[in-house]
């Protein structure tokens, strides 16, 4: 283990369930946990499809830094950003790299000159959606869903609960302010019903995003005076989902319009690994005792879990 990457909690205890913990703050899933993650994502897809007919999109692992900066991401969250870098492709530089030790004794790569870093590893799945619909004039609400492996550097990591990379499923609505408010209300109700049927208790509470130097950030100050983020908190301290009203932050940033002005947007986000943690904590380490999220979602929505919604 390296400093800052301690692995308290379920790392060893849950290995038989298919959890492998990496000192980098990441986990591998297999077996029962991987199957549960799959059924959970199927449940979310069923909700998104039946509630709003949401269209699913899939996006790359990284996005251009210039795109993220359209909404000032790098000033707001520099402490969480992860940048994919590569060696400058100049052959002399590559030869110099190969001629060196390549790796140090602690596994650190002995880099030579780097190519300019222009990408950021996806910090939240929904950023791709706003960028992908840049310049769109909406005639009505647009409902989308996407999932991605997201990267956020943290001071410390815990298996499933706080990871450098994790899986985020999101529902997104772009439209008028009333449309996004209705979306959040509908989504929260559906998530509450899903959680109730899964017998996982949460409390919704007001939250803020983890801004760097928050008191100097106007967006953080706005979240304080006009709460726009609510988290579904399991066990009094673990946010397994969030409902976020962005107002026209992304509409203005990406020139997405509705009714002649910047569109509003809102998202509902789920951290899949945290849901796994909550489900297993609630129902125990015997997979036979676990509820089937997809089956529960099918009951909630009236759509068979194995069928396209």
């Amino acid at each position, binding site marked *: 283990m390296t400093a800052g990457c301690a692995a308290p909690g379920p790392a060893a205890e849950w290995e038989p369930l298919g959890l492998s913990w990496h000192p980098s703050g990441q986990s591998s899933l297999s077996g029962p946990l991987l199957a549960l993650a799959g059924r959970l994502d199927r449940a979310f897809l069923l909700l998104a499809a039946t509630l709003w007919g949401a269209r699913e999109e899939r996006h790359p692992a990284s996005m251009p830094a210039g795109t993220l900066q359209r909404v000032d991401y790098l000033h707001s969250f520099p402490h969480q950003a992860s940048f994919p870098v590569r060696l400058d492709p100049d052959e002399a530089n590559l030869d110099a790299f190969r001629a060196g030790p390549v790796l140090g004794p602690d596994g650190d790569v002995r880099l030579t000159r780097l190519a300019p870093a222009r990408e950021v590893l996806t910090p939240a799945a929904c950023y791709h959606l706003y960028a992908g619909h840049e310049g769109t004039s909406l005639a009505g609400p647009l409902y989308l869903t996407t999932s991605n492996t997201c990267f956020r550097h943290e001071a410390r990591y815990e298996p499933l609960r706080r990871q450098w990379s994790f899986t985020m499923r999101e529902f997104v609505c772009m439209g008028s302010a009333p449309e996004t408010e209705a979306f959040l209300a509908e989504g929260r109700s559906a998530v509450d019903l899903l959680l109730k049927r899964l017998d996982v208790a949460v409390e919704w509470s007001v939250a803020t995003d983890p801004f760097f130097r928050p008191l100097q950030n106007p967006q953080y100050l*706005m979240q*304080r005076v006009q709460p726009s983020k609510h988290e579904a908190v399991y066990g009094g301290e673990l946010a397994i989902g969030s409902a976020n009203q962005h107002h026209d932050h992304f509409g203005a940033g990406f020139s997405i319009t509705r009714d002649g002005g910047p569109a509003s947007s809102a998202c509902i986000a789920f951290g899949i690994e945290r849901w796994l943690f909550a489900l297993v904590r609630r129902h125990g380490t015997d997979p036979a005792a676990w509820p089937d999220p997809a089956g529960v979602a099918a009951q909630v929505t009236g759509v068979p879990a194995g069928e396209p919604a």
Partner: protein
Amino acid sequence: MSSEPRADDHGQHGPGSGDARAMLRAWILAKNDDLDAGALSDQTPLLTTRYLRSVHLPELILLLERVRGTPIDVEYLGAGDFRDIDTIVTGFITPAQNTEPAS
């Protein structure tokens, strides 16, 4: 409902609150070209209407600090503190130079 500074504001809202209201009205109107002065009262919601946006907050806080003569500890900002002009004046101007809003 008053949308203009009044002579009796000193008695009702404390010293300088009438001036503060007029100043806030002018400041908000300057930030919103499409906002008609007649449509802005002291109870007009500023946040839900987006007349007051995140980009405005640092300047507004500096403005309030200048008017009240003491700093505002933004760590104590809370939901609704900037809801409308009434709320801002009551919370930040009239409570006798407090350093925390009345939230």
